[in-house]
């Protein structure tokens, strides 16, 4: 059970960038050599991809569009080593670490609003973004809490020429996607705005159940970016985004404990506002400073009520969660010499959560975080670059934390680049782990979850009320200790070798050691036989392996890439238990056996092998086609023998295979048509992957007009 919570995964290193294309088309994004692309996320400053000492993947607009991806999870799913999890929305497992440990940014500013630690990637539309940057390995030295596995940064397009465009797409399950965008440049002012509407009729994979596997929903996203250039030295940018989703729970029939039928229905609304303001000023050719103010508000409300056989108050399930996050930050870049740069920065965060999850009524919990960071980047000579960084986070609710990082790049010969980095990551305890005080009444089981700050009083109350049958003293004592941040150390060692202009090989070895993992476990059993859970720092886990990608461009019109990741994960406590004299026993097909390390399968929800093959084709006449194969070996989903760890004989999924194809044509007048199918061979696993409904067909048309600058 803790292994489920502690989900840790894997990763792979992919520099997926599409290259060749038609120069005549309007929205062509020319990427000559992907190593020349500029990345900003890895060092909080613009650097060429080839000059970044940490593992970075770039996914550009063209790849996203030609792959037919609409939401962030669609495109990340196609990267070797990124695993899209499916509880509490589409989460991202990266470098062996669960969704809790990856920070998601839009233009460098964090997206908030997680459920059970998972940030649902499907909230983010990707059709019109400029690119996605993925930095793997701990990045807390720049970004603070949550950037333990890495950072995903969604970079939106900067307005640079007058354009307008629109697109329409329709596909299986009523998936409808409509987008429109425009950009206006006028002297010193520029504005781009776009809107997206997405509808999904949902589906039911289990006809014997009246509940939909996916309830129908629709959402829309409005986004605007405006800039004003006061002078060559001073620039102001504002970036605003609004997301709104409504999901309807179809009437759901069920029976209660006394076998009386009841029906409920309802809806869930999700809203997301992000507003960022950046004032950029060049004090001199060597000093540039950014002042940023960012505000984001995430709101989720579920209201479900009985519509037949209403037992009492008509409410089946009500949930309200709102997080507001306000951040004030300054970053100053100083070019000390032509070969060395210093970045210093600091900021203050007001983090508020308002929810009924912590108590019976809606309460507000607050946290304030102050931080300072600096990074020194030194090009020692033409074959050796060193980047050292450090961040200090002060936290009102728990201990402060220091996150260091050191990265180096060596270029021993022209074709070979060696990247080595070591960094610290951390994740602060979240509101739920601190303040949750929740008793589930709707499921009929009546279990209770108590956050760290609530556990002593909560247990005393339950004991006074005579609700406690037995206490797990070891876990209860652990739960009474103050929660510490989870910390990690990550090491990455990567090699990039360019054989010829046509073949590039990348391989990155990684190891992450996570300490103080916050896990949840029963601390007591109630007289009604359900459990009381709490959170405590307990486990130590590691994830290690390597990721590799070969990109081959046999001719200008074709790019072939092959990606693979090997991942090993383990909970160190499990290993100690298996090695101990008492041992751990498992059951395989009814036969009880003592585990050896060979029988131990690591953490739940991890694929040992994951791979992909992608072939992109595009010719001079604007035709494009692509084939993307994604493979993941089966992953452990359930302990069947009561030892709580994953071993031979437990429940694993079957191997995952998905084949996606897409074909289309750009016309000279800015028109584009495209059709495709995701999951051509209709792979399904109704129990373990209810997020995959089978083959999805789609067709779409788009138009884009650009007024080229003279």
């Amino acid at each position, binding site marked *: 059970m803790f292994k489920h919570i502690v989900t840790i995964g894997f990763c792979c290193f992919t520099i997926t960038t599409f290259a060749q294309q038609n120069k005549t088309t309007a929205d062509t994004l020319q990427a000559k050599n992907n190593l020349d692309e500029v990345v900003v996320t890895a060092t909080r400053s613009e650097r060429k991809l080839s000059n970044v000492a940490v593992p970075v993947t770039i996914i550009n607009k063209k790849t996203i569009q030609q792959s037919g991806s609409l939401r962030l999870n669609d495109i990340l799913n196609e990267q070797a080593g990124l695993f899209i999890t499916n509880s509490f929305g589409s989460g991202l497992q990266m470098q062996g670490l669960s969704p809790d440990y990856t920070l998601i940014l839009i233009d460098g500013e964090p997206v908030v609003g997680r459920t059970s630690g998972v940030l649902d990637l499907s909230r983010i539309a990707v059709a019109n973004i400029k690119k996605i940057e993925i930095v793997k390995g701990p990045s807390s030295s720049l970004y603070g809490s949550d950037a333990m596995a890495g950072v995903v940064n969604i970079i939106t397009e900067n307005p640079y020429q007058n354009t307008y465009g629109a697109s329409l797409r329709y596909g299986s399950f009523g998936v409808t996607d409509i987008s429109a965008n425009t950009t206006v440049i006028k002297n010193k002012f520029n504005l781009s705005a776009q809107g997206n509407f997405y509808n999904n009729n949902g589906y039911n994979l289990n006809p014997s159940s009246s509940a939909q596997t996916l309830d129908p929903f629709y959402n829309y996203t409005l986004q605007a970016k405006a800039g004003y250039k006061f002078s060559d030295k001073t620039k102001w940018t504002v970036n605003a985004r609004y997301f709104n989703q409504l999901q309807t729970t179809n009437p759901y029939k069920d029976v209660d404990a006394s076998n009386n039928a009841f029906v409920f229905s309802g809806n869930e609304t999700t809203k997301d506002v992000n507003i960022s303001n950046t004032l950029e000023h060049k004090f001199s050719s060597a000093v540039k400073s950014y002042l940023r103010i960012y505000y984001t508000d995430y709101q989720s409300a579920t209201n479900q009520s009985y519509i037949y056989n209403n037992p009492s108050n008509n409410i089946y399930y009500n949930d309200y969660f709102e997080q507001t996050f306000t951040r004030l930050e300054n970053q100053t870049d100083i070019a000390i010499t032509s070969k060395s740069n210093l970045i210093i920065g600091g900021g203050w965060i007001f983090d508020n959560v308002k929810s009924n999850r912590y108590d019976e009524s809606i309460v507000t919990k607050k946290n304030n975080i102050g931080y300072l960071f600096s990074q020194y980047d030194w090009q020692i000579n033409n074959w050796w670059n060193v980047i050292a960084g450090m961040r200090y986070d002060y936290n009102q609710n728990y201990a402060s934390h220091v996150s260091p990082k050191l990265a180096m790049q060596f270029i021993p010969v022209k074709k070979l680049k060696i990247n080595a980095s070591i960094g610290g990551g951390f994740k602060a305890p979240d509101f739920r782990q601190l303040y949750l005080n929740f008793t589930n009444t709707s499921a009929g089981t009546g279990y209770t979850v108590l956050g760290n700050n609530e556990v002593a009083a909560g247990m005393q109350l339950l004991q006074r009320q005579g609700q406690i*049958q*037995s206490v797990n003293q070891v876990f209860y004592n652990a739960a009474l200790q103050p929660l510490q941040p989870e910390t990690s150390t990550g090491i990455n060692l990567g090699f990039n070798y360019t054989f010829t202009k046509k073949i590039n090989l990348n391989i990155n070895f990684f190891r992450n050691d996570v300490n103080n993992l916050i896990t949840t476990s029963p601390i007591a059993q109630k007289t009604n036989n359900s459990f009381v859970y709490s959170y405590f720092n307990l486990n130590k886990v590691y994830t290690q392996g390597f990721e590799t990608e070969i990109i081959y461009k046999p001719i200008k019109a074709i790019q072939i890439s092959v990606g693979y990741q090997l991942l090993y994960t383990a909970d160190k406590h499990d290993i100690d238990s298996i090695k101990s004299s008492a041992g751990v026993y498992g059951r395989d097909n009814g036969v009880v056996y003592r585990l050896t390390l060979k029988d131990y399968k690591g953490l739940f929800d991890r694929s040992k092998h994951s791979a992909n093959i992608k072939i992109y084709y595009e010719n001079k006449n604007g035709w494009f086609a692509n084939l993307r194969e994604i493979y993941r070996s089966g992953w452990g989903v359930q302990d069947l023998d*009561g030892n709580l760890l994953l071993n031979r004989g437990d429940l694993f999924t079957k191997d995952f295979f998905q084949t996606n194809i897409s074909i289309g044509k750009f016309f000279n007048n800015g028109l584009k048509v495209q059709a495709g199918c995701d999951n051509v061979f209709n792979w399904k696993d109704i129990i373990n992957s209810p997020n995959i409904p089978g083959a999805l067909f789609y067709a779409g048309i788009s138009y884009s007009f650009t007024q080229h600058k003279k």
Partner: protein
Amino acid sequence: MIMKNRFLQLACAAIITSIGFISCSKDSGTVTIITSTSVNSLNSAGSDGHFSFYSLETGQQIASSDSATAKWDIAFRSTTILINGGTSGPANGGAFVQRGVTFDTYNTISTDSTFKIDGINGVVRAIPTGSGNGWYSYNFSTDIISPIAGNILIVRTASGKYAKVEIQSYYQNAPTMPDANSVSRYYTFRYVFQANGTKTFN
């Protein structure tokens, strides 16, 4: 030396459903004082508030009206298992959870083993309740109770004899992979009862 033949065991198990319990007979032809028994899907739902009482010695389910007698050895109600002793019954039964063994190879109860008895208000039980404490683990993400592999119950019966008990499933018809649709509170277990009063099972 004993171990009734497996075919008989399976045959018996197949016959019995839901509230079924079963006592497979001793090896035919040989006189033995050790009995191996498999019980399939003993209902412990406790819908009338009563435990389901069971005699390891006779392999019979005992009526709840006999709960105050020494006729039963262990009793089940949902995940709780009682022994006939202490606050739970009038006899001198006791038990402990032996961890980290396989049922078939555990043949001797060591002399320093301590048999526990049920205490007041269920605060102390010979077979502790709670996930990971006794015979089962509870997975709250799947809501499944799994018997802990390698944990067996060593029971002193009402009459002061000994048995080893392995709980195999908590779900009706003992599915290999119980899921949300499985019906819980049905014990499938096997045990070996030593009738001669010694602490050995071979």
